C-alpha cells in the first residue's frame, strides 16, 4: 500500500518535472529573451501610441494615406501569401517526392531570399519588371505593367514570402505516409480526389502556418517593396511601412507609432484568425 503510494508520488513528480530538466532556468531565459526583444519594444510602441489623445490618434490613423496604405498592404500581402501557398506547395512537393539532379542545390536556393538584403532584391526586381527589363518588356508589350503598380508589390512579397511556405510544408510531406495514397487509390479515388480528400487536409495546418508567416512578413516588409512600388499616394501604391518611414523622416515619432500600432493590431487579428482556423482544421483531421 505504502509502496504504491510512493510510486504514485514519484509518478506525479516526474509528470510535473516534464521531460526537460531545469524548468525554472529555461523559463527564466525564455521570459527574459521575450521581454528584452519582443514584449518591451512592443509595449513601448503601445505606450508611445497611447500618449496621443484619442482624437489625435484617430485623425492620424484615419487619414487617407494611412487608410489606403493599410488596404494596399493587407490586400497585397494576402494575394502574395495565397500565391505562395499554391506554388510553395508545388515546390515542396517537387523537392520531396522526386529525386533529380542537383535536388539539394535547388533545395538550398529556397532560403536565398532570406539571405539577400531586401533592398537588393527590390532594386533587382524593379529593374527586371520595369518596361526596360527582360520579362518586364514582354509583359508590358501585352499591356501588363508590373513595376510601380500593385502587381509589383505582390511580386516583391512573393519573393520574400516563398521560403516560409516551402519550409513549413516540406517536413509534413516528408513524413506523409504513402499508404494513405495507396489506400485511396485502391478504394477507387482518382488523383484529384486523393489530393483534395486525403492529402490536403493533412497539409492544411502546415499551409496555414506558412500562409500566416508569409502574410505577416508581407505586412511588415519595407526594403524590397519601396523600390518596386513607386510609392504613389495617387495610385495607392504606398505600403504601411513606407508611411511609417515618411513620418519618421520628419521625426514625427508619435504619428509613426500610431500607424505602427494599427498595423500591429491588424496583423495580430489576422494571424489570430488564421490560428483559429488552423486549430479547427487540425481538430477535424485528428478526429477523422
Amino acid at each position: 500500500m505504502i509502496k504504491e503510494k510512493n510510486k504514485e508520488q514519484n509518478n506525479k513528480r516526474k509528470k510535473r518535472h516534464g521531460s526537460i530538466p531545469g524548468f525554472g532556468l529555461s523559463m527564466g531565459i525564455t521570459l527574459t529573451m521575450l521581454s528584452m526583444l519582443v514584449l518591451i519594444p512592443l509595449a513601448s510602441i503601445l505606450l508611445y501610441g497611447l500618449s496621443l489623445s484619442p482624437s489625435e490618434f484617430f485623425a492620424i490613423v484615419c487619414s487617407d494615406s494611412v487608410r489606403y496604405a493599410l488596404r494596399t498592404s493587407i490586400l497585397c500581402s494576402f494575394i502574395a501569401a495565397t500565391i505562395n501557398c499554391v506554388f510553395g506547395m508545388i515546390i515542396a512537393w517537387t523537392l520531396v517526392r522526386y529525386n533529380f539532379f542537383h535536388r539539394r542545390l535547388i533545395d538550398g536556393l529556397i532560403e536565398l531570399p532570406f539571405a539577400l538584403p531586401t533592398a537588393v532584391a527590390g532594386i533587382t526586381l524593379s529593374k527586371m519588371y520595369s518596361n526596360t527589363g527582360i520579362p518586364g518588356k514582354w509583359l508590358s508589350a501585352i499591356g501588363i505593367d508590373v513595376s510601380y503598380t500593385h502587381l509589383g508589390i505582390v511580386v516583391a512579397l512573393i519573393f520574400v514570402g516563398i521560403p516560409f511556405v516551402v519550409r513549413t510544408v516540406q517536413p509534413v510531406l516528408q513524413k506523409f505516409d504513402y499508404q494513405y495514397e495507396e489506400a485511396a487509390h485502391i478504394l477507387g479515388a482518382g488523383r484529384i480526389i486523393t489530393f483534395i480528400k486525403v492529402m490536403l487536409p493533412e497539409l492544411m495546418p502546415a499551409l496555414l502556418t506558412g500562409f500566416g508567416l508569409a502574410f505577416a512578413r508581407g505586412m511588415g516588409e519595407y526594403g524590397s517593396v519601396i523600390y518596386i512600388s513607386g510609392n504613389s499616394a495617387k495610385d495607392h501604391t504606398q505600403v504601411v511601412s513606407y508611411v511609417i518611414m515618411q513620418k519618421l523622416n520628419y521625426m514625427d515619432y508619435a504619428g509613426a507609432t500610431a500607424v505602427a500600432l494599427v498595423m500591429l493590431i491588424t496583423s495580430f487579428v489576422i494571424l489570430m484568425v488564421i490560428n483559429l482556423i488552423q486549430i479547427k482544421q487540425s481538430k477535424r483531421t485528428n478526429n477523422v
Partner: protein
Amino acid sequence: MSMKKFNLCVVVMAIILSMLTGCGATSGGDSKNVKGNSKTVTITNVSYDPTRELYAAYNEIFSDYYKNEAGIDVTVVQSHGGSGGQARSVVEGAEADVVTLALAHDITLIEKAGLIEPDWIEEFEGDSSPYTSTIVFLVRSGNPKGINDWDDLIRDGIDVISPDPKSSGAACWNFLAAWYYASQKYGNDEEQIKSFMSKLYGNVKVMDSGARGSTTTFVENGQGDVLVSWENEAISTLSEYPDDYEIVSPSISILAQPSVAIVDENADRNGTQNIAHDYLSYLYSENAQRLIGEYGYRPSDKAILGEYADKFDLDMSLCTINDFGGWNAAYEEFFKDGGVFDEIYSR
C-alpha cells in the same frame, strides 16, 4: 509554476538583465578617439547620400593638410544616407563629430535635441554652407520631348521622375523650386499656383523615397522623360553616361544650401572640438573649394565659382528658402500631413 521555480526564474532574469546593463556601461567608456602619443585622431562625419564621392576625396586632402600643418593623423569615418534619417540617427545617439547634411532644417532638429549649440549657423561663412547646389532637369539625349522649363513638365504625356517630398529632403527642394516658378508666373495667385503644382505632380510617374532612388529609376530602369534632380547628381550622372543624357537648367530654381555643423556634445566628449572645427573650416580653403567645384557642387567662393562658369549655369535666377520664411515655415505650410502638398496631390 511553484513559488520556488518562480523565484529561480526571476533570479535568472535578473542576472541576464544585469549582465546586459553592465555591458552597456563599459562599452560607453572606451569611445575615446585620441590615442595617447601616436597623435592619430578619428572623427566621424555624418553626411547625406550624394556627397559620398566628394567627401572621400576631401578627406584625403584634409588629412594631408592636417598632417603637415599640425602633425596629426586624422582618419575620417564617413556615414551616408538620406539626410533626414541621418539627422535622426545622430539624435538617437550615433557617434558624429560633425554633420554635413542636405538642409539646415535637419541640423536644426539635432540642435533641438541639445547636441548642437544654437548659434551653429553663424559659426562658418555663408550660413555654414561651404557649397551650394540647385535643382535642374536631366533629360534623355537630344531632349526628345523638348523640355526647357518648368511649364514643359505640366504638358500632357510628359512623365516626370521626382522623389516624395514626404520622405526626401531633395524632393522638398524640387517642390519649392517649382512653386517659386509658378508664383512668379502667376503673380502669387494661389489658386493658379496650386493647379500648376497639381498638374506637375500628376505627371510624376514614379515617386521614390529618396533622390538616389529616383536617379536609379530614371537612369537604370529607364522610366520617365525628365528627372528633377540635384545639380550635382545630374552632373555626376552626365559624367558617367555623357552620351545618354543632357542637363536642362530651368529659368528659375532654388538655391539649396547644404549646411555643416560641429556636433558639440559629441565633439566635446571625444576631445575633437578643434579638429572638427578645422575639418569644416578647411572646406572654405581654395583647394577644397576647387575640389567641390570638380564634384559638381557650386563653391561658395565667388571667384572660384566663376572658374566653373562652363559647368554651372550661372544665369538661373535662384530663390532661397528665406523666400518661404525658412524651413520650419515651409514644412508647416507645405509638407506636414494635410499641408499644401497633400492638397495638390490628391486633387
